């Protein structure tokens, strides 16, 4: 072992003994937590530069909440413009929205929603708050790093949004920023000057923030689990956060590299992505030669595909968790669920080419990517079967959290199945870059993942704020949203089947789009109603924070460790008494027990037995 003793050195005997199952020794854990830990006192340390994972989790959540309303506002402007193009809009100098302004909305809507909502709230928001508690830790492994991750994310949001306010406005190349449109600068269109550069920088900063966050998530899960919290007893939420963090760790570095190269092409005269011989609006481009636009696509989608799994995996974890809790039944096939999460995560790195079937990439690799993509449907299907298996034979409590979890399952099925069409290159030839794709990814990301966030919110709000969200208002919010999102996005499949390309600022330029105008009207009206209904949620959220019914320690009669501490928790989570874990996370309706749930931390002797 290489240990030596010498002057002034103490070899600790009772040091980091690890149990065979990998959890830490009890004696050390309880020894550490006593006495040395005081809550911060100044306002800045408590709420601004807090090191407390719970505060940081809420900060991420509020950032996401702001971003989602901003993103929805942008999409509302888009939808209104599509059906009433002559309407004078606010925020548009000159009154009517121009095509480039529409495309700027498209770009920023996508970027803000994907990065600032779907990559933050489910993972950095709820994960930060709940992961340490659910594994019995007092905080993340590296609280300072955690605080830095949040503030770096904040800076990236500021930089991203600032693109709206520079000359030329926000970029028009979509959240995918394909060169050469995004690489040649102002000459390719408005917004492609400073706006695009700010976008690239903002996204690069976001990459760093995400990498920092991933480090904390993985280390904490691997090294800070309480005694008895073996990997096999971790809630599926923790598994999802862990695998998501691994995806992020491996994927964001690639996007960072891509952004660096794109930035250099834009400002330093390099030609990573820009080939020679180009002519833009009769102006030859002589300063670049030899680069490949496809290189960007490979780099971007190598990141981009794991990114969408980063967006959905935590929602899957929450869905499993909530479905089990409110069916009063264990998760069906826990091991298969973990395996499916891992398989989805792994395969997620192998399918990026399915975004590039018509890109000019080799058709042979298209074939390979296609088969791998069809394969990724298998673990997704396994999860769906297991969710149904969890519900089957249960005894459902229809809380709002449960409604959103049930909605998640329906939406995931619908959104996932359209992927089977897109995964086949021969069919994708027709459907690529049409509204069929828009329908697919919105149902999966823009709705199912959001439902995961809502389910988590309604589930954990009492723990986080010590008060209950109003269930009646919550149910109204659920129904408007569930019906509404289907009304918005199901018709888009048919727009796609009719061949309607995406990112069209206007539908009057192409004849075959004319018969589709009524569908656009329907979608816009549905969107207006659904987006307005989210104000119900906003009201409920902030009102209940102050005036909601006070929450008990375990209002849902749930089993995992967060429900063993006060609502809201003390600053060090367990008030110095780190729990020991005795069983798995979903012990509901165990035959022979008096209660229909057995929390993870209750010692076997104290579990009531029915006679």
């Amino acid at each position, binding site marked *: 072992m290489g240990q030596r003793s010498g002057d002034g050195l103490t070899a600790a005997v009772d040091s980091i003994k690890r149990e065979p199952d990998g959890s830490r020794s009890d004696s050390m854990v309880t020894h550490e937590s006593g006495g040395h830990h005081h809550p911060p006192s100044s306002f800045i340390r408590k709420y601004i530069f807090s090191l407390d994972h719970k505060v940081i989790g809420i900060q991420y959540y509020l950032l996401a909440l702001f971003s989602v309303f901003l993103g929805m506002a942008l999409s509302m402007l888009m939808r209104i413009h599509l059906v009433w193009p002559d309407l004078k809009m606010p925020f548009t100098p000159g009154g009517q929205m*121009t*095509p*480039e302004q529409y495309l700027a909305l498209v770009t920023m809507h996508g970027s803000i929603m994907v990065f600032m909502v779907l990559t933050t709230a489910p993972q950095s928001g709820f994960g930060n708050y709940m992961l340490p508690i659910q594994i019995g830790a007092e905080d993340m492994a590296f609280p300072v790093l955690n605080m830095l991750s949040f503030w770096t994310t904040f800076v990236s949001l500021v930089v991203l949004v600032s693109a709206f306010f520079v000359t030329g406005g926000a970029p028009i190349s979509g959240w995918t920023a394909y060169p050469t449109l995004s690489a*040649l600068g102002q000459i*390719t*269109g408005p917004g492609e000057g400073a706006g695009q550069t700010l976008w690239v920088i903002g996204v690069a900063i976001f990459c760093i923030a995400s990498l920092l966050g991933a480090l904390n998530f993985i280390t904490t899960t691997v090294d800070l689990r309480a005694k008895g919290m073996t990997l096999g007893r971790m809630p599926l939420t923790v598994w999802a956060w862990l695998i998501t963090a691994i995806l992020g760790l491996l994927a964001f570095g690639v996007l960072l590299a891509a952004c660096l190269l794109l930035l250099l092409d834009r400002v330093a005269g390099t030609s990573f992505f820009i*080939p020679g*011989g180009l002519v*833009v609006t*009769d102006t030859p481009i002589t300063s670049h030669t030899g680069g490949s*636009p496809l290189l960007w696509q490979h780099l971007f989608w190598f990141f981009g595909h794991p990114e969408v799994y980063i967006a959905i995996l935590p929602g899957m974890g929450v869905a499993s968790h909530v479905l089990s809790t409110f069916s009063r*039944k264990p*998760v*069906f*096939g*826990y091991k*298969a669920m973990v395996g499916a999460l891992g398989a989805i995560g792994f395969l997620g790195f192998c399918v990026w080419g399915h975004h590039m079937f*018509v*890109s*000019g990439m080799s*058709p042979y690799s298209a074939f390979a990517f*296609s088969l791998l993509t*069809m*394969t990724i449907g*298998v673990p997704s*299907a*396994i999860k*769906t*079967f*297991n969710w*149904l*298996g969890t519900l*089957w034979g249960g*005894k459902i*409590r*229809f809380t709002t959290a449960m409604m959103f979890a049930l909605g998640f399952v*329906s939406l995931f*099925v619908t959104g996932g*199945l359209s992927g089977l*069409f897109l*995964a*086949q290159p021969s*069919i994708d*030839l*027709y459907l*690529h*870059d049409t509204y069929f794709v828009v329908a697919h990814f919105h149902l999966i990301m823009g709705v199912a993942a959001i439902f995961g966030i809502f389910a988590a919110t309604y589930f954990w709000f009492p723990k986080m704020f010590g008060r209950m969200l109003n269930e009646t208002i919550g*149910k109204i919010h659920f129904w408007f949203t569930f019906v509404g999102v289907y009304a918005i996005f*199901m018709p888009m499949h048919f727009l796609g089947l009719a*061949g309607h*390309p995406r990112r*069209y600022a*206007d539908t009057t*330029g*192409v004849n*075959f789009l004319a018969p589709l105008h009524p*569908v656009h009207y329907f979608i816009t009206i549905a969107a207006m109603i659904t987006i307005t209904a989210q104000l119900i949620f906003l009201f409920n959220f902030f009102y209940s924070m102050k005036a909601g019914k006070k929450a008990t320690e375990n209002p849902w009669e749930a089993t995992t460790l967060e429900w063993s501490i006060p609502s809201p928790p003390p600053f060090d989570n367990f008030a110095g008494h780190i729990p020991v874990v005795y069983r798995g996370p979903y012990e509901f*309706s*165990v035959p022979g027990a008096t209660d*229909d749930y057995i929390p993870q931390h209750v010692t076997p002797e104290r579990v009531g037995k029915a006679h």
Partner: protein
Amino acid sequence: MIRKTGERGSAAVAFTFATFLVIFTGVTVYLFLAKIWWFPPAITQFGTQIDAQFHRTLIITGIVFILAQLGLAYAVFQSRDRGQRVSFFEGNSAMEFIWTLATVIMFVGLGLYGEHAWAEAHFQGAAPGALQLEVTGQQFAWNFRYAGPDGKFGATKPELVSASSGNPLGLDPRDAAAKDDIVSPVAYVPVGHEIELLIRTQDVTHSFYVRELRLKQDAVPGMVIHMHFNPEVIGQYELACAELCGLGHYRMRSFVNVVSQEDYDKWVRDQETALQQQ
């Protein structure tokens, strides 16, 4: 605490949720069957094969969709709180195995089955004797070029590109082969003839998309990408750009006119005559 009596309101919520799912499933299935907004008819053999594969996929996903949504509806309804005992089970390895296997066979099988059409479009080149048609995208127009009687495409130079002066492709007047090149904003092709497209772009990525051909191909800067098709139905077919290319992306539209061999030959003659008069 195990409640012995059913929770109040549980039945109503369960019923509503299940009913919504049933209605939603029904409406969706109906809309897909009714084909109110649908593909235009395909005009190539290849297109017909794609449509067949699409229908196969639609049937399989349709069945899965119906089973899953109705299964969810039923599970929710059946499991509403009626004061019943919970059936405690944590899994079923046999069922896991069976439905995993079924899914693998269905999904991968479907994928493999459809590869033939893809292979035909992309693994093989155009048939010999195909009509060569170069299509160039630019912000925000399409231009088609025919090699003319000499069968050779003339040289182009980026410096010579000037849409405003009628030379959008930058044809080099000093190249003899360029003199008879026909440049047209719309395409004319003879029916029943193999056509080979050479897809290019001058500035940013565009995408050549004609619905009736069931074809789409990005036009990538720095590349010339080949596609081939054999149109079998005379008509005018709209070409729409399918890759975000800037503010005019929505109006980057042209037409592919599939005409009889006689009409095509006449059109070519007219174009050549116009060229010689310049």
